[in-house]
């Protein structure tokens, strides 16, 4: 399949601070997720491919054309910025119709598209309210509405689920999936793995400005599986628990913290561990006070990947 977005040796820095470094990437139609912790370079990459920033080195092309100041590309592109910023004196409808007018649509067409976009994100009832009166979630949804209102072929969404309640998140994820079915190209950034998992299986891991890994979700999960997990359990029966689990072949290491009645298990099969733990809780009199996973986060995965 012909890539829609092509990045070659893309690098960008801000003074002494590196944004992204030697990114080589082809993005095809469908949903591609950029996954990385805060400061990884996701927003920088998105700003370059949307023509807001110029790369210091390398180049980026969309549909084979350079992006900077390219109105034809902008006509087919929709961008949802991460920042919570609006023309506060306008209401939702005015905001959308105003931005739609830049595409050359007539007034009637702008109104129609604006209403459609508002309905898509569930804001039709508050269209006439000033944006400054919107809640955090509503503001995020109106941002998504302005991204999709002109029916672009490419959607670049920077943390689109930030600030949304679970129902709204599901709505937006459904919307994104509908765009994929319509043959559009969607690039989504996030630092929350489960959210990304719900949208797509095509993930690009980015960290310290570099691409660490690219592949589908199972590949990432396998990376997680091959990286030992630490699970800390506080219980008055911590030693008994350790005895019961020590024989399991997926337990790599056990560390005791007797001063706080806790035990830390190291395992490379998290799912099997939790299955067995559930069985033990149900079958025996073990009482657990607290279960935490000190390294169950993206940062730990990335740290692991960086160390490899």
């Amino acid at each position: 399949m012909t890539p829609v977005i092509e990045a070659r040796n893309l690098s960008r820095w801000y003074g002494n601070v590196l944004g992204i470094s030697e990114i080589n990437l082809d993005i095809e139609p469908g949903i591609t997720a950029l996954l990385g912790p805060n400061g990884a370079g996701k927003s920088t990459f998105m700003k370059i491919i949307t023509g807001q920033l110029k790369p210091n080195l390398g180049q980026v092309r969309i549909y084979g054309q350079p992006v900077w100041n390219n109105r034809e590309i902008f006509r087919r592109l929709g961008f949802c910025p991460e920042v919570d910023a609006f023309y506060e004196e306008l209401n939702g409808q005015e905001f959308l119709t105003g931005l739609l007018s830049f595409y050359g649509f007539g007034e009637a067409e702008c109104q129609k598209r604006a209403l459609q976009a508002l309905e898509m994100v569930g804001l039709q009832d508050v269209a006439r309210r000033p944006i400054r009166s919107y809640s955090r979630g509503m503001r995020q949804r109106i941002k998504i509405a302005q991204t999709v209102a002109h029916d672009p072929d490419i959607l670049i969404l920077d943390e689109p689920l930030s600030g949304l309640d679970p129902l709204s998140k599901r709505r937006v994820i459904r919307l994104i999936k509908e765009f994929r079915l319509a043959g559009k190209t969607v690039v989504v950034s996030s630092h929350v793995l489960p959210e990304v998992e719900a949208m797509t299986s095509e993930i690009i891991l980015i960290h310290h400005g570099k691409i660490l890994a690219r592949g589908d979700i199972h590949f990432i999960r396998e990376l997680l599986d091959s990286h030992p997990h630490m699970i800390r359990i506080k219980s008055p029966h911590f030693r008994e628990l350790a005895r019961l689990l020590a024989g399991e072949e997926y337990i790599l290491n056990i560390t005791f913290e007797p001063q706080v009645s806790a035990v830390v298990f190291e395992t490379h099969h998290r799912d099997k561990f939790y299955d067995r733990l559930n069985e033990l809780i149900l079958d025996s009199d073990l009482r657990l006070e607290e279960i935490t996973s000190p390294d169950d986060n993206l940062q730990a995965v990335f740290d692991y990947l960086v160390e490899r």
Partner: protein
Amino acid sequence: MAEVREKGYHHWNGQLKERYWPFWPITRTGIKLAFQRKRFKFLFACSFIPAISFAVGIYISERLEDFKFMAQGAERALQVNPNFFKTYLTMDFIYFMILLLMALGGAGLIADDFRHKAVQLYFARPLTATDYLLGKAGVVVFFVGILTFLPAVVLLLLKLLFSGSFRFFLDYPWLILSVIFFSAFLMVVFTAFVLLASSLSKNRNYVIAIMFAAYYLSEITRGIFYLIFRTPYSALLSLPANLQQVGAAFFRVKTPYAIPWFLSLTVLSLFCFLAYLLIKRKLRGVEVIK
């Protein structure tokens, strides 16, 4: 029943002590942030040019014989008396520099808190609205004091040192009090002015425009009304003119305008009071959107 333990939270069994000056962290941070702005230090340094010039004037006044060839007819101009100090503290240049410094370092005192919705964060702490305002006011007081009170006191000390006697102070024993009280008055007026402007908008540029617009418009209005009506009472319309009237009264010199000085004092005091009421009204933890 098992205890609920929140991860990372520990109960603290100490006694909660109230800060003696709860506004001080706000003032300290405001001053630090002002100095972090580019060009602020340069402008701040330039603001001392008049003080340096006046200090040189004091030096020359004590050595007039040596400078006679340069300063013919300058004996009168370089007479160090209460009028000398009043002139320094009512100079247009000083007021202009105060405005410029406040444009850089004071325009965002309240405006930035509105923009970033930080007012809620302040009032989620054990801080009253008065503490908040005192903290912000402290920043303006600091800079106005540095440009008015401090140089004036230094000029007094220089006069003492260069004259080599206490005669000047025996002639004008009330002068130090005039310096203190008029500087304090300037601090109050400029604080009210700057904080009022800052509370009117979230946009710092807009606040700067309002500050300069209000200051110059008052002076323009005075000029136009004087041209038309030829009455000295037109001075009551101008902020700098009123300050000059009050300054002259504090230093017991002839007022520049032929109107009772207490009228100017009343106008400025009324302005400060109204500014305070308006700022308190604007200061809310939650923005009410109509």
